[in-house]
């Protein structure tokens, strides 16, 4: 006869484990998804413990209201992301399971007993290596700078987490908001939008060949002309002559850093004698924008597009207030007041309101 007292420590957790999934609505059939690398992945119906090495995925998980399922995050979000600590304060206590370059620290990860790991599609070898070593589903997900793929990513994560309803809310809000900006920005005719050069990644001459917020806001990214010949995915390096030849009407400087950390500033471009003849410099239309931040934060990219639309067509958005608009959008995604204001205090983007 085994005393009841001695088996209780084993029985109670087992009972709890049987009850918990039903209680949170997670007792579901496995879900098959296609990740950003085009791989079919079967995800277990019960995903309670998540490791995310892709900051964009982590942000979306939090926006879906499932931040509590995160058991490990990546190096960037803990040490360099200026926004995430405001969006999800518990992240400060989550273990960091990756090193610089997003490679997984297996000895940190295994004791966390994840049900799934999200990795970056740009690290495809690492994704396969993690799958082999951890013997669990590894999904490589990211928008890679495309709005359409960002929406798909939110929907996919909604399916994985059993939060299709919240995912639908977010994607509907995103698409409607984006469409409203597009319509307002294009009201004067797309062809009249300003030509734009983007100075990203801390360099005057490094520029993204594709940056959808610019086009959505009614501008034309001049570097998109490089696309037929440029084989890279995100950024190209151009010459100063090329910038002069393009003669952009607006120059945007990536401003996702606190002012003291910026290698490239609006002031340095305005003062550069080599750029003195460029229209944007002559007319003072050199501004900060947010830019990629390990791809996007879904709320921030919406704020950025609205901000750019105002920047390109000041007359069409007379009442635009960056901070107010930002706080509203962030509340929709993360449910908390004042998140964008907090970010702005770090980046000093209160100063960015142009004209």
């Amino acid at each position, binding site marked *: 006869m085994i005393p009841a007292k001695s088996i209780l420590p084993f029985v109670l957790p087992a009972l709890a484990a049987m009850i918990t999934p039903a209680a949170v609505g997670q007792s579901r059939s496995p879900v098959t998804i296609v990740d950003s690398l085009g791989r079919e992945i079967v995800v277990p119906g019960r995903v309670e413990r998540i490791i995310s090495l892709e900051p964009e995925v982590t942000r979306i998980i939090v926006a879906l209201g499932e931040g509590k399922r995160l058991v490990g995050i990546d190096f*960037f979000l803990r*040490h*360099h992301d200026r926004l995430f600590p405001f969006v999800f304060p518990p992240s400060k206590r989550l273990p960091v399971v990756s*090193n*610089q370059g997003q490679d997984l620290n297996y000895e940190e990860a295994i004791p966390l007993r994840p049900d799934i790991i999200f990795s970056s599609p740009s690290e495809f070898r690492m994704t396969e290596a993690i799958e082999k070593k951890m013997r669990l589903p590894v999904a490589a997900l990211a928008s890679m700078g495309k709005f359409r793929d960002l929406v798909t990513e939110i929907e996919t994560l909604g399916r994985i987490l059993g939060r299709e309803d919240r995912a639908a809310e977010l994607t509907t809000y995103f698409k409607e908001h984006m469409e409203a900006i597009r319509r307002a920005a294009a009201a004067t005719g797309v062809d009249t939008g300003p030509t734009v050069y983007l100075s990203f*990644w*801390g*360099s*005057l*001459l*490094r520029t993204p060949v594709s940056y959808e917020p610019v086009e959505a806001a009614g501008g034309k990214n001049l570097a998109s*002309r*490089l696309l037929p*010949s*440029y084989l890279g995915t995100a950024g*190209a*390096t*151009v*010459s*100063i*002559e*090329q910038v*002069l*030849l393009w003669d952009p009407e607006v120059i945007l400087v*990536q401003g*996702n*850093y606190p002012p*003291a*950390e*910026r*290698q490239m*500033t609006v002031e340095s471009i305005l003062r550069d*004698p*080599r750029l*003195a*003849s460029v229209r944007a410099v002559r007319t003072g239309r050199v501004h900060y924008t947010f830019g990629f931040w*390990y791809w996007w934060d879904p709320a921030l990219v919406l704020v950025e597009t609205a901000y750019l639309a105002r920047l390109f067509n000041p007359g069409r958005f007379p009442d635009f207030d960056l901070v107010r608009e930002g706080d509203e959008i962030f509340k929709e995604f993360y449910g908390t007041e004042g998140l964008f204001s907090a970010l702005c205090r770090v980046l000093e983007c209160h100063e960015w309101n142009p004209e």
Partner: protein
Amino acid sequence: MSGTRNKKTTAAFILAAVLPVVILVLSLNIGAYRIPPKAVFTTIVGAVFPGGAASGPSPYADILFRIRLPRLLLALFAGAALAVSGASLQALFKNPLVFEFSLGISYGAAFGAALSLVFLGRKVPAQAAAFVFAIIAVLAVLVIAGKSASQVVTILLSGVIVSALFQALLSLVEFFANPYALQSLIFWLMGSLSQADWKDLGMTLPIIGVGVTVLILLRWRLNVLSLGEDEARALGVNVKREKIVVIVLAALTTAAATAVTGVISWVGLIVPHLVRMAVGADNRKVIPLSAAYGACLLLVADDIARSAASFEIPIGILTSVVGIPFFIVLLKKSGKIWL
């Protein structure tokens, strides 16, 4: 045989006098912004003789004098600096594989730039930090070598140690870097002349000018030093002092170039070898010819970097990707290393 070599030497010197100027003038016509050759000519004439009727429209003048000319001059002088520095060190150490990497200069400069780009923001320009740490690297080599600084093996071994140390420190900085600062750093490490301006030239050219000129003037002594230490002493040369002078000058010129161009590899190795293949190992010829052909090589590499595509290819990648196979073919063909 000797007659053929003399003819080759004469041809090499004539070419060395003409080629850099020709390439410089041709390079002024290359760039993303199309300027007709006639407009290049009239703009330059207009600038040299301001009162004359001939002058190009303002964008041409801006592009030629604010963008192309500083960039081309930087390519010219940096190429000369790297090649002369490599040739002098190879002669001094009687070792064909010595170049700026061997004394820790490149990794010292890279570490300095990394510190600036990653941790110091805009407070300390990357160029200044790169220069300071390149010099620190060479001083560290001399200190580690200590009293044996005249010994070739000791100096080279110290260089390997210092290089390895700065390489490790660079990796450490990369590891802790903000990903965006890391991007700037990687871009810097690939080498580029794209940001060259007159301010860069003002800081760099005096040092390179003095360094290259003095090394060319020392070409006789390099011949004596390359005979061997005992022979050099027998001829009245203070071996230790001369070695330190050459090392410091080579370090200064390379550090000044690397600080503004980033890491551009192989110029200091390939050019002196090509010159020796053509004219032999006499440093009276090798050092000045290396200056001219180093300048030509970097000018041409930069022309390709600027014009091969609508975006820029980092010049450090080009010099390695194009230079190394070319060098291998030449070595295979000739079957020996010149020194």
